[in-house]
């Protein structure tokens, strides 16, 4: 067990025992990853903020089912991805009803190279990712947005490590197809 895993196992044990500071430390450590993964799944930082926070609540309530000694991040990110997937359904119904007023902490900073990378804007890229199915979105979210290793991604996806690469390859191909369908004239850049 690595030092980091050992430390996290200790934090989980303390959190199970009711130590809120311990769980708070885990939340703080993985909040950015959680919001990034949720943004990739939901396509919106506002929805991502809600989904990430709800996921942390659900993870807390599921601490008893966490396997001692296992790495925390893949377990957490899988819960985040599932919660983000669920929140997509409800947010799609809500989004036309009211302007969201609680995007308080999460932002997408402007890019210095907006539109220059691969010839797509942030909005176009998020929309294209959002149109993928959940399996494709998840592997892209884990690998690019949370920068998880193949081993971590395999744990989060509950698949063999060797499967991650092929799954990511297929997801990227479908993402390119989505972008090409959006902007056929600029397809050559991708």
């Amino acid at each position, binding site marked *: 067990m690595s030092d980091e895993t050992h430390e996290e196992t200790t934090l989980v044990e303390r959190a199970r025992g009711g130590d*809120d*500071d311990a*769980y*708070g430390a885990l*939340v*703080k450590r993985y*909040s*950015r990853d959680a*919001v*990034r993964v949720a*943004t*990739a799944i939901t396509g919106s*930082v506002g929805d*991502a*903020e809600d989904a*990430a*926070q*709800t996921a*942390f*609540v*659900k993870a*807390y*309530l599921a601490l008893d089912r966490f396997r001692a000694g296992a790495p925390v991040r893949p377990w957490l990110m899988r819960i985040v991805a599932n919660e983000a997937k669920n929140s997509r359904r409800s947010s799609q119904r809500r989004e036309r009803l009211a302007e*969201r*007023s*609680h995007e*308080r*902490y*999460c*932002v*997408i*900073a*402007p*890019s210095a*190279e907006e539109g220059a*990378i*691969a*010839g*797509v804007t*942030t909005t176009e*890229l*998020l929309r294209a*990712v959002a149109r993928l199915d959940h399996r494709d979105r998840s592997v*892209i979210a884990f*690998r*690019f*947005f*949370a*920068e*998880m*290793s*193949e081993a971590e991604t395999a744990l989060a996806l509950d698949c063999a490590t060797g499967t991650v690469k092929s799954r990511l390859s297929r997801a*990227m191909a479908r*993402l*390119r197809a989505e*972008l090409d369908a959006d902007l056929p004239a600029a397809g050559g*850049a*991708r």
Partner: protein
Amino acid sequence: MTVHSPIDPLESALADLASRVDITDVDAFTAATMVKVRRGRDDARRRRTFSVVRGSNARQVLAVAAAILLVVTAVLAVPRSRDAIADLLGIDGLRIRSGDVPATSSPGSSAVTSSSTFSPTGSSTVSSTTGPTVSGAAPFDAAAVGRDLALGSEVSLATARATLPALRELDSAYGPPDAMYRSDRPAGLVSFVWRARQGLAGSPTAPTVGLVVQQYPGSGDVSYFLKTLSPGSRAREVTVEGKKGYWVDGAPHSIAYVDARNAFVEDTVRWASNALVWAANGVTHRIESSLTQDEAVALVALLK
């Protein structure tokens, strides 16, 4: 940690986008999340309790509960056995003491028996460290103003001063507070409550309460309270007594404090009025009322 060395433009674009998704204030986000975690935990506990009762023979459960209540009531009637029964039952937060019935500045606002059928004699008092003080000496319906706001135990001014040595009193036209409370969440929290009256409208959620002034030894950083603002609440930064503070209005809101130990404590008050929150000299202050921002700021000058 970077696990990719993007070589194709689309991978670069994804990596760039991911790096720009950020949290503006991770500490505040964490604190807000922990507030939701605690709520979720409390809700789950309530559901489990309900589930246990529902899954059992409800009649048997009620019969046993009634029997326990009768026994406890009988034993509590004997002063010396109160402490013992509290220990025996392991009731968290329950402290039973004798004497020192909290005084209040307003007739009819003394501590009262709440849901207990306990009817002690003499000056014995049963109090909860997290709830209102209860006493058999007062009639059931003589509720202290603000009792429903879960501000803690009702106390005398002397106890309030002992709780928070730096306590400031409001020397205003509203007179002395109609009720005073102290709480351990956050540690050292003192709340002064005034009844609603002409020129001091009640809150939609607590119509009898016109003004609440709270003080507690805080970290001095009041920005954390922003984390629990409900959608629809608005917070504007203001300067109060030369310090940064916030004026909050709009939807009902609750506040999570950072106490003197730097622990996050969620406020249990559900209030629907306007709030002025600021920290000065190691004490965080909060004025809740339906007063305007200017009127609330004017009250600050009357804190002595």
